[in-house]
């Protein structure tokens, strides 16, 4: 009987030790995956099936906690200038995880010197439309002309002569070409949207375009670098990239 009790003792001890070792191995493995997520080239994580599921799971949690209050499920809200994260159109950068991570960490116009804040949409119904550069204001008629030009780019102009005048303003004193390019294709290096695509951040109606030209735009995304761990920031970026890239098996 004492021998049986001793055997039970030994067995229980061995099981306990094995469980602890197993737990340590599991913790170590989980740490290894998490470490690899932050060590890996961010742009390659989505394609790495050993990392992507964990990164997306962590990212989903962080997204819900920190991003969804504005971005919702990622579909955007034109009335608030919140971009659609699922349509593959990116105002800043090209949608790579590394680029998104920088936005998560340092924001857009978030008073973070490492964030995006190179340019904003001038307010042409203002004596000084743009703080950073001397651009002359526009009259209400000139704004209407530029709106007609923008509508022309989408086949919706109603006043060709006004659109012609708008084209001269666009390429001349209005200075629009400086950010949006001569062809209106925009510049994702400074966050200047394409004026020829279908993706509108605030909407493409004449009223909305008039408002945008008259009173400007300067959307903001907060900088989370002091509130997220590097892993959380990376994982949220992976999740946001997945929203538009739809990798196999991904569910928002």
């Amino acid at each position, binding site marked *: 009987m*004492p*021998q049986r009790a*001793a*055997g039970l*003792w*030994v067995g229980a*001890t061995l099981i306990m*030790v094995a469980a*602890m070792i197993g737990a*340590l191995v599991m*913790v170590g493995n989980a*740490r290894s995956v*998490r*470490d*690899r997520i*932050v*060590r*890996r*080239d*961010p*742009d*390659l994580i989505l394609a790495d099936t050993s990392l992507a599921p964990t990164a997306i799971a962590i990212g989903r949690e962080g997204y819900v906690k920190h991003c969804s*209050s*504005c971005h919702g499920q990622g579909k955007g809200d034109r*009335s*608030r*200038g919140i971009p659609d994260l699922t349509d593959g159109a990116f105002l800043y950068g090209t949608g*790579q995880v*590394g*680029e998104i*991570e*920088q936005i998560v*960490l340092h*924001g857009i116009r*978030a*008073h*973070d*010197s*490492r964030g995006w804040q190179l340019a904003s949409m001038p307010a042409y*119904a*203002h*004596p000084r439309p743009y703080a950073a550069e001397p651009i002359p*204001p526009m*009259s*209400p*008629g000139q704004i209407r002309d530029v709106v007609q030009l923008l509508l022309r780019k989408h086949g919706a102009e109603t006043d060709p002569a006004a659109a012609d005048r708008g084209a001269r303003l666009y390429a001349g004193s209005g200075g629009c070409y400086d950010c949006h390019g001569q062809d209106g294709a925009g510049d994702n290096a400074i966050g200047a949207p394409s004026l020829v695509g279908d993706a509108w951040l605030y909407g493409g109606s004449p009223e909305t375009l008039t408002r945008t030209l*008259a*009173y400007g*735009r*300067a*959307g*903001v995304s*907060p*900088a*989370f670098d002091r*509130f997220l*761990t*590097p*892993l959380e*920031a990376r994982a949220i970026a992976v999740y946001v990239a997945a929203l538009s890239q739809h990798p196999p098996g991904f569910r928002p």
Partner: protein
Amino acid sequence: MNTPLPAASADSWSLARPGARRSLILCALGAVLGLAVAGLGLFSARGTRTSGVPAEDIAVVNQVPILLSDYVLQLRTLYDVSLSQATPGQKRAALDSMIREELYVQRGIELGMQSDTVEVRAALVGAVEEQTAADATMAQPGDEDLRHYYDRHRGDFASEGKMTLADYVLPAGSSPAAVGTARAALQSGGAPTGARRTGAMADGEEFYFAARIHLGDRLFAAAQVLNAGQVSPPVVMPDGIHLLVMQTNVQPLPAPYGDVRDKVLAAYVTAQTAILAAANERFLRKRADIQIAKGY
């Protein structure tokens, strides 16, 4: 009274055999495992950074980490490449530049640059102010807060007024009768005798700010109160007597909340930033030991 261990147990100890030594060994085993777990947590936890380079860093310089995410950004900035696209030479050069920067920053602090160099001091002041603004940006106010702010500052979100008018001027010293005749002609839609139209506002509709610039403050004040079709009373100016004929006058209107939500948010954040900055300064002054010389 303890029973002495059997003599054989000293020579052929067995884990299965009850005894004080077995208990001690099991205790020791537990202690070692506990220490291992604690050590793993202690030496690899974020913040301690005592076991090599943490996963999220590319290097640690005098215990100051250089973040991998910053390194990735550096590669993108210097060479427009991702981490995996960068050549070994590019990686090395980017890392060297970041280590050099960190060393120089640390050396700058050692030398007291923050006390001596105007640019460093200005940069630090600016950085702290920006940090306050960043905190305000993080606040992410809800729609209710923004609507409340909008309701209290509705006038700040009004549209810019617009007007179209014609500005006529009669020679200085014109008789009241001549001015009256010209005004009557303008009121009836005719051409005023003895008056000429000035170039101000000749380009058509203007925003109020532009009209103010083109007309000057006095004439703008006279114009602003006119409705479409009305003619202003004579306004005596150094260059003559002006009569303003208003064609369209769109007064500034408070914009609907939905149209200006982004502006409301920006204004709200600006206001919050000012509040936070003031609180921050009060806190800094409160905790500081400031002694001011007599007479100052």
